[in-house]
């Protein structure tokens, strides 16, 4: 079965429970509105922080919600690798003639996070001053941010093959999403360096949002490079981890 067909089936499954689907999307939109309210209230009290104002932060938030919506909505299993591995859920995938990681990622769609993506699109349309060039930057930046986020979560989730525990992955996801939702210039020194390397939160939203305002080839290449690097690292860690995967005999009751 092709990856596209698996994704279509997962989407159809998510939409099948129509009222639950829209309720979950609505809840996520309300959640995002609360964050927009926070930033508007913040910049109501503070005129600007290190060159960031309400407009720039809302653009960052539009990219972040779109990227997170794509990564955690369409490839939602990228955050569940520890649970899937410890629950023995890879067994049936390994018997199929498909690339395990790609199949695993698109097998489940999470409507809650699709709400995030939908919100991001609307937020960009309303506050992002869309022009053809800016729309192109927003789409490319969001896609790269989503790919990087999913790759990072696969990488940290694959640690479960070695450690046997999923707390690190959960912490890594919370940390990267949290760090990506704040202006990168708030940080300095080692923390800022961390955001461009080990926990690449800056590349999920801050760098793509900056490219929409000020397009530039070196920064764009850095974004593509960072995404490619984490994609290779994530895929490699999962493939190496599969060699240690031995849960075929685990007992389950579902």
């Amino acid at each position: 079965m092709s990856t596209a067909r698996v994704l279509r089936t997962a989407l159809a499954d998510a939409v099948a429970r129509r009222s639950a689907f829209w309720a979950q999307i609505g809840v996520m939109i309300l959640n995002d509105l609360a964050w927009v309210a926070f930033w508007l209230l913040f910049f109501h009290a503070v005129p600007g922080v290190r060159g960031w104002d309400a407009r720039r932060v809302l653009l960052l938030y539009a990219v972040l919600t779109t990227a997170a919506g794509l990564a955690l909505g369409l490839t939602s299993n990228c955050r569940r690798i520890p649970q899937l591995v410890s629950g023995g859920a890879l067994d049936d995938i390994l018997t199929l003639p498909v690339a395990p990681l790609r199949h695993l990622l698109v097998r489940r769609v999470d409507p809650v996070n699709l709400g995030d993506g939908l919100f991001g699109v609307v937020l960009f349309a309303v506050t992002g001053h869309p022009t053809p060039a800016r729309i192109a930057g927003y789409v490319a930046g969001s896609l790269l941010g989503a790919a990087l986020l999913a790759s990072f979560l696969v990488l940290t989730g694959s640690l479960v093959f070695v450690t046997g525990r999923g707390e690190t992955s959960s912490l890594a996801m919370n940390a990267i999403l949290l760090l990506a939702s704040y202006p990168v210039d708030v940080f300095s020194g080692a923390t800022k360096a961390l955001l461009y390397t080990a926990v690449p939160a800056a590349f999920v939203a801050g760098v793509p949002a900056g490219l929409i305002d000020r397009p530039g080839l070196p920064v764009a290449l850095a974004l593509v490079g960072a995404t490619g690097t984490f994609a290779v690292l994530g895929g490699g860690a999962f493939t190496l981890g599969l060699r240690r995967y031995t849960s075929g005999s685990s007992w389950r009751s579902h």
Partner: protein
Amino acid sequence: MRGRRLTAPAGAASRRLLADVAGLVSVSAFYVVVSVVLAGLWRAATAHGPVAGYTGRELTWYIVTAEAATCAINPRLIEEIGDDVVSGAVTVEMLRPAAVGGVRLAVETGRALTRLAVLLPVGAVIGWTAVGPPPDATGALLAVPALALAVAVNVAMQHAVAGISFWLRDTRAAWFLYQKLVFILGGMLLPLEVLPDVLRHVASALPFAAMAYVPARTAAGHVAPGLLLVQAGWLVVFVVAALAVFGAGERRLQEVGT
């Protein structure tokens, strides 16, 4: 005897939590990340002078305290209680010789206070490292009981809200909305003084302020002991409400089943 029925499960829950070292490390690590980020944002905001009457040092202690009050709580408590009611798991608890609501409140309060006891020294290190000692020694001392009250009010209100699942059956979305009300109207992300006047008055009159704003403002050196009395008042209100809702829910289960 009746008190022991509640303290014994609370103590056992606390010991189980302390035994889960990896879980505590995970909660502490998240607390460190979120506190450092938010405190950094507010310190940057006060680079050119105080904001809403708070200096950068005060806001750092404000954020460290507000985050401790919320990170000590299981954020999905409402959802988990609702799931237990809907799945029928709560009916097994009705076989015990103690009120379900009372035991659950005691257990969750025990867990939350234990987490808080772990987070407090971590928060003190973050605050001290970033900006030095708390702005006011009295405020720092009073912030400890204010934090305990904040956690207790939060747990009690979540039980009162989650008890609605005896009738509505689905409270999965409620925890999400509840959490956001604590974020903004509870003063977890920003002091209530930052809000526009009308919203500030509304937020001050709601119970969410007792869950983050009161201990945070106290730790920031703006001491007002009367606010602790307000917290105590909300605690009584929500403990009574939670016990009443769970009591009525239990009677409903006995009459009509799950």
